[in-house]
């Protein structure tokens, strides 16, 4: 059952955010008997709140606070963006952990580093994460069922000579498991799974943590500032409750998992005379090296019906382009993933207007789709800052998000669009569109792990270089992006971080 802790209880770990990173870390700590309070800005939905209507669900769970600059497509709700994700769970590859060593520094504006950990070290945690999330095709879990859209992608992939195509590695139950049902192929994965077949912390980690008696969820609480003492240790988190009243929750340690924008904002907003540039920011790296993957999307009108709206939104991956093959004209690689879209998305991705656009929704039943996600080299100038004067409804400085594609990403995107074209045209597609899809749902960097404290914000455990009881627990810690969709790695890192925090507590060094 859920605990209730006093505000002045300084024995608790405060976790900010209840998504893939925060929800997982909180539950893992609670399972070890460590007392945790999880602060979540959004409200707690139930499966009964989930309807198959994207605008309605966006209103219920999207993040709508004022932001300036590039759009970031994340959620403010218990479960965070695990409510919206599509469940694709590849691992980061061995060479991608050594991005600088593998690719070399691409140019003066690039800030590549190697991760301060290896795939070998993370492997046991990837396995734990896959078991926790129920990733299809791992352990004794069957691969995901092949939807019509997946079958089109796979058939085209074979025709263009690709070999590594799979409907596995989806965190959507193919069959009932761990108290959650098997997928009913409803679609609308990105507006919340109506039956809980897709993994989300809302109905896995959070209730599991509550059962331990070592966990309290405080929904509808907006963390605004992290306090510290004269020794430079984090001492508590100031948050606004649903009425806007401020409280300070004392803490033994603080873990921040607000997705990149909120994670940057709370660190930068917690500046003090001791830390004038913000918490954990002696390196001036907080908010920098914001990565969001090379993205492209492609849609094609096929000669016969596909009905790609039927079934899970994403159902498989082509891995043949994931390797580092510089002869393609760019560093790193990308994955091609089957994806569907509703009529509005179909039109909006293509963009523009006129018959070149409407031919896609007009032939909706015949449309197939893929999207590609690939390595995005870090750039210090891609960053999240605080607006000097604009304030939001909480009185917080409005975040400013600056993101520009790296030249490497543009070359990779062109390649991925060309390969997507070949896949669909090999099967007789009559119309094709491919291009940029600036959706901002894969968010990484801004508090990256680095061996050298000058190069990043956190060490190999996600512990900040400057403040040893302050941790970062979301995609913000990624040293580089790799090609893989980030959630599996976020969860694996959170499980690993929980082990580290527990060990440090046992050693009485935290």
């Amino acid at each position, binding site marked *: 059952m859920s605990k209730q802790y006093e505000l002045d209880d300084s024995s608790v770990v405060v976790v900010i955010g209840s998504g893939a990173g925060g929800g997982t870390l909180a539950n893992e700590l609670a399972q070890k008997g460590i007392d945790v309070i999880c602060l979540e800005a959004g409200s707690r939905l139930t499966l009964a709140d*989930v*309807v*198959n*209507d*994207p*605008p*309605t669900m*966006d*209103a*219920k769970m*999207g993040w*709508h606070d004022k932001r*300036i*600059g590039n*759009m970031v*497509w994340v959620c403010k709700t218990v479960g965070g963006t695990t409510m919206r994700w599509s469940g694709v769970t590849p691992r980061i590859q061995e060479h991608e952990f050594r991005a600088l060593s593998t690719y070399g520094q691409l140019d003066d504006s690039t800030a590549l580093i190697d991760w301060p950990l290896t795939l070998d070290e993370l492997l046991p945690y990837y396995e734990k994460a896959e078991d926790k999330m129920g990733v299809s095709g791992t352990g004794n879990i069957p691969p995901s*069922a*092949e*939807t*019509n859209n997946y*079958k*089109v992608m*796979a*058939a085209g992939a*074979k*025709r263009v000579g690709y070999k590594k195509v799979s409907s596995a590695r989806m965190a959507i139950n193919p069959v009932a498991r761990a108290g959650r049902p098997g*997928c*009913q*192929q*409803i*679609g*609308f994965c990105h507006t919340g799974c109506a*039956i809980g077949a897709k993994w989300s912390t809302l109905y896995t980690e959070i209730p599991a943590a509550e059962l331990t008696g070592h966990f309290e969820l405080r929904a509808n609480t907006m963390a605004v500032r992290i306090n510290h003492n004269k020794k430079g240790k984090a001492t508590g988190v100031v948050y606004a409750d649903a009425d806007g009243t401020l409280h300070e929750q004392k803490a033994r340690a603080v873990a921040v998992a607000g997705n990149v924008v909120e994670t940057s904002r709370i660190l930068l907003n917690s500046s003090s005379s001791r830390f004038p540039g913000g918490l954990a920011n002696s390196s001036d790296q907080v908010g920098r090296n914001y990565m969001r993957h090379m993205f492209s999307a492609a849609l094609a009108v096929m*000669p*016969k*019906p596909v*009905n790609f*709206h*039927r*079934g899970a939104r994403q159902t498989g991956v082509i891995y043949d382009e994931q390797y580092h093959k510089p002869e393609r004209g760019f560093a790193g690689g990308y994955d091609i993933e089957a994806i569907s879209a*509703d*009529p*509005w998305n*179909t*039109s*909006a991705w293509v*963009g523009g*207007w*006129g*018959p070149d*656009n*409407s031919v896609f*929704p*007009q*032939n*909706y*039943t015949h449309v197939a789709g893929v999207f590609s996600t690939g390595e995005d080299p870090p750039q210090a100038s891609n960053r999240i800052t605080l607006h000097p004067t604009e304030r939001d409804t909480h009185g917080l400085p409005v975040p400013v998000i600056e993101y520009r594609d790296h030249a490497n990403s543009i070359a990779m995107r062109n390649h991925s669009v060309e390969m997507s074209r070949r896949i669909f045209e090999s*099967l007789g597609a009559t119309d094709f569109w491919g291009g940029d899809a*600036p*959706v901002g749902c894969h968010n990484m960097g801004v508090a990256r792990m680095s061996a050298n404290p000058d190069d990043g914000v956190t060490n190999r455990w996600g512990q900040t270089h400057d403040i040893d009881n302050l941790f970062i627990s979301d995609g913000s810690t990624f040293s580089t992006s790799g090609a893989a969709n980030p959630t599996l790695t976020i969860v694996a890192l959170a499980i690993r971080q929980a082990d580290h925090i527990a060990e440090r507590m046992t050693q009485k060094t935290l």
Partner: protein
Amino acid sequence: MNDKQTTRRRFLVAALTFSGVASGSLGISFLRSSAAWAAATDDADNLAVMGRLAQLLFPHDGLADSVYGEVIGEVLATTAADPATDGLLAVAEEALDAAQDQAWIDLPESEQLEAMIALQNEAFFAGIRETVRFHLYYHPGLWQHIGYPGSSKEHGGYKFRGFDDIDWLPETE
């Protein structure tokens, strides 16, 4: 404005941001008061202009004019209710007419399209384009026309209703 309209408007604002239209890119000089536009929209001619504009933005052969008409009704309600887009349609109409020195609605289709192309990089044009796109492609009449059934959870999804029924692909083994 009911709850459904409110949620749809919020989603639209996100969509406009996504497409780079919102976030202050609309110059204040394009905007007019909602009162002026509300008066103007009583005019059937204005509705005809906007309906024609929607048809040319996103043409669908065989789609009933009434669907475009209903979409324009929703577009008007949305734009008038949001300071970021209020007055866009009046501006568009004026600009379209000015582009060819006569009433745009009376021009042949090729010249109507020319006027639209000449204005397509203007911020107000993108604002209208995205607003129409949103309301058209979430309209049940459009869905019916293109064969999109919408919500599926109440039907048990597609597990037993054809999620894997494709039968025309070449053998992949």
